[in-house]
């Protein structure tokens, strides 16, 4: 929800000697309680725009400004705290404190792009801008190519809808946040991964398992938070152009202005166009939909002594056209899927520091969005209009380094207006849900060796009555080189059937939705062990984890009991997912790092067919295992960078084909995807070329009965692998930095 609040201790206080115009910079370090450096803290002179950020060692230096003797130290735009500076010759040692330090403390020869937080009590990985630059990263959906935890796969072969998978669960069980408030819920969940352009992002945080109760009750498998570039620290101007042989053109630009001492703003622009028809498997259907997207954002940041205010507004327009490839074939009446999306978002965050010594603050977050998707799946029109309003009021206080408390109130409103013309009649699926709630969260911290975080929230849904969400996290690090984390907690979710599954309309399957669908409810438990082992003068990082999700109530998406239908009904029996992962990373020689990871997932659900028989099956279209090896090399002068990633995807189960006339196999085999990229850096710009799916692996017949799209066997949703083959791309990044 928002970053934590920090106390500042000034260890070295001025003694004598002060010069009015001292040109020596003020130097210092920002540490956490553990004396580990805090990276990326904002440090600036009060009432000026003159600032800097702490580096990987927590170090900063800042030249003195006439008229200002107070340094403000904050983190990600929150909780500015003032440090009086009387003697610039002394090196400052500023210790930031927070309930849970989310700051990363990895010190390495070469900063790796993905940093696993060592201090956070939640298991959190931070994907930095450096990491995003290792791959094409046109948007959020493509940002996880070098990440072993998050899978992104296409939901179907026609619309380009993409789903995240985390811990063997689909993306709807992962809570999406932008700037630490919930976003892309409901109608935006299918294509939301395409709504955040890569160059806009400063970092992405991925946390697995149950998360803090601060952000609500929805995170079941985990949480993904995107931080956009901040106007205070962003480049004056940066731009990026990108083109791929698949016919994608893209341009991004962002700029930031420091208008006066207290006010700064950032403007973000994105335009992309996929206008080339591809049908490499010659089944008459486009391999990828044609797309055009315009995306604009403007954000404001205002600060004065103890008060920080942020405002943002965003607009997005997207057109998608999928279906039959009219350019390569003569169709008299082609099967076409058209989606036309408009989305507007507003947000504001207001934070007031009541007491800097005691880390006492109040904050208010307000966000609203309007989302419309007008679509036609061939002859089936489907339209959705969603309004969302979210409000959250938080109060936090640290009583002592050992005890801190966070509590707050929240309210979420979702208004859905959906209509689907189906079997000759227009069906309306309109509903409103208001969920007010309250939470309290307590942190016990014993010298950072043992951290206990317990939270509970109670919410009332106008659709599902009262419900209580308890969550607990423990972190224990007996030694520097060994950290153990455990978590357990509950999550709840309202299933939005058509909003989240309308891509299933690109098949002949009949939609069969039960009337009495309930709220989804699940327990998630996890354990994680991290080892940091010194080996030949470098550090070997080993990580092992196990997460188990057990559904108490679930809306089952059943494509198995009838190959010509998709059925949605309440779970009767068990549904669980067990995910094991190991990961190792070692910098073998100067500039070179190799990371290898392996994950095994066991996810099963009890399905109930039309006659009431229950049968337990593995989740369909899910890889049983996944291996990932990613190697990165930077030359000594850092002028060249080479990245290579191999994804080894295990086989899995297909939804049951028709017994008398099976049109697809009952399983799919394992496959490998290799991506590579070369980047050349210059003083103010860089150029990159790369390839996705280097060895051109594709699923052979992604669309079932493609020649007869209006027949009873047509199905565009039996997709387990890439539909589009090798892609070659190139791009240029340019920036004017602020200092």
């Amino acid at each position: 929800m928002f970053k934590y609040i920090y106390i500042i201790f000034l260890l070295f206080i001025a003694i004598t000697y002060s010069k009015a115009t001292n040109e020596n910079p003020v130097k210092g370090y920002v540490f956490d309680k553990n004396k580990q450096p805090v990276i990326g803290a904002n440090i600036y002179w009060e009432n000026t725009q003159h600032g800097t950020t702490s580096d990987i060692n927590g170090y900063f230096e800042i030249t003195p400004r006439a008229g200002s003797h107070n340094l403000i130290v904050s983190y990600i735009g929150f909780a500015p705290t003032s440090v009086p500076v009387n003697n610039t010759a002394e090196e400052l040692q500023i210790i930031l404190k927070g309930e849970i330090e989310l700051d990363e403390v990895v010190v390495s020869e070469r900063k790796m792009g993905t940093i696993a937080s060592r201090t956070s009590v939640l298991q959190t990985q931070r994907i930095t801008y450096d990491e995003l630059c290792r791959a094409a990263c046109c948007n959020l959906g493509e940002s996880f190519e070098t990440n072993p935890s998050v899978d992104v796969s296409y939901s179907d072969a026609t619309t380009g809808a993409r789903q995240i998978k985390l811990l063997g669960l689909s993306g709807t069980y992962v809570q999406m946040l932008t700037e630490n408030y919930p976003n892309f819920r409901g109608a935006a969940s299918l294509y939301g991964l395409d709504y955040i352009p890569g160059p806009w992002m400063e970092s992405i945080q991925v946390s697995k398992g149950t998360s803090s109760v601060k952000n609500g009750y929805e995170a079941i498998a985990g949480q993904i938070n995107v931080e956009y570039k901040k106007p205070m620290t962003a480049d004056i101007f940066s731009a990026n152009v990108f083109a791929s042989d698949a016919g994608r053109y893209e341009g991004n630009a962002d700029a930031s202005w420091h208008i006066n001492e207290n006010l700064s703003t950032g403007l973000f622009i994105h335009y992309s166009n996929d206008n080339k028809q591809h049908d490499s498997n010659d089944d008459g259907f486009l391999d990828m939909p044609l797309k055009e997207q315009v995306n604009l954002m403007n954000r404001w940041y205002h600060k004065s002594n103890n008060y920080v205010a942020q405002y943002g507004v965003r607009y997005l327009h997207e057109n998608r056209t999928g279906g039959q490839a009219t350019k390569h074939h003569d169709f008299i009446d082609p099967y076409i899927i058209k989606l036309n999306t408009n989305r507007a978002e507003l947000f504001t965050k207001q934070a007031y520091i009541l007491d800097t010594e005691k880390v006492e603050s109040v904050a208010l977050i307000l966000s609203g969005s309007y989302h419309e998707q007008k679509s036609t799946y061939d002859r089936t029109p489907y339209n959705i209009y969603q309004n969302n309003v979210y409000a959250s009021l938080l109060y936090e206080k640290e009583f002592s380094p050992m005890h801190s408390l966070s509590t707050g109130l929240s309210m979420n409103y979702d208004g859905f207006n959906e209509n689907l013309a189906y079997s000759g009649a227009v069906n309306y699926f309109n509903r409103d849900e208001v969920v007010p709630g309250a939470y309290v969260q307590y942190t016990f911290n014993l010298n950072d060796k043992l951290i206990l975080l317990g939270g509970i929230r109670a919410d009332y849904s106008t659709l599902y009555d009262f419900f209580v969400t308890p969550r607990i996290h423990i972190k224990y690090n007996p030694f520097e080189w060994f950290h153990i984390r455990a978590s357990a907690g509950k999550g709840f979710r309202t299933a939005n059937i058509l909003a989240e599954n309308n891509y299933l309309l690109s098949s002949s399957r009949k939609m069969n939705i039960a009337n009495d669908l309930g709220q989804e409810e699940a327990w998630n438990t996890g354990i994680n062990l991290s080892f940091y082992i010194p080996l030949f003068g470098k550090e070997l990082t080993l990580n092992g984890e196990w997460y188990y999700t057990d559904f108490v109530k679930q809306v089952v998406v059943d494509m198995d009991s009838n190959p010509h239908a998709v059925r949605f009904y309440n779970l009767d029996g068990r549904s669980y997912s067990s995910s094991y992962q190991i990961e190792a990373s070692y910098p073998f020689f100067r500039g070179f790092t190799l990371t290898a990871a392996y994950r095994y997932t066991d996810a099963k659900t009890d399905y109930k067919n039309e006659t009431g028989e229950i049968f337990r099956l593995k989740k369909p279209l899910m890889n049983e295992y996944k291996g990932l090896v990613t190697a990165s090399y930077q030359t000594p002068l850092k002028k060249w960078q080479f990245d290579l990633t191999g994804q080894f995807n295990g086989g899995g189960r297909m939804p049951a084909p028709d017994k008398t006339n099976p049109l697809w196999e009952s399983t799919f085999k394992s496959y490998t995807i290799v991506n590579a990229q070369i980047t050349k850096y210059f003083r103010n710009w860089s150029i990159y070329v790369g390839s996705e799916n280097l060895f051109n692996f594709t699923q052979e017949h992604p669309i079932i009965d493609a020649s007869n799209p209006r027949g009873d066997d047509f199905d565009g949703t039996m997709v387990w692998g890439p539909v589009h083959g090798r892609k070659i791309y190139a791009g240029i990044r340019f920036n004017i930095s602020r200092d």
Partner: protein
Amino acid sequence: MKRFWITLICIIVALSTAFAQDAKNKKETINFKVEEMHCNNCIKKIEKNIAFEKGVTDLKCDLNTHTAEVTYKTDKTDIEKLVSAFKKIGMTAVPVEGENKDSDN
């Protein structure tokens, strides 16, 4: 999977031969004491600039000792030019005596 490893090995071999080519000309390595080198941002600044100076073939910055070890081709640049390159980005580089290593590799 095999193809991935073959690709990786090919790239490493290609890189090592590519960079071995560099070693024809006479090179020298010098240590500079750079007082202004306090933080990783400063190192980034040095790397973004000094690395792109003509003749520079290697650069290692050490934050603890505030030194930058620069390897350069003697026919392309010299210590004076390097010092002025540091000056351009607002840093004073003082050659550390006695630690110069000649290397002809």
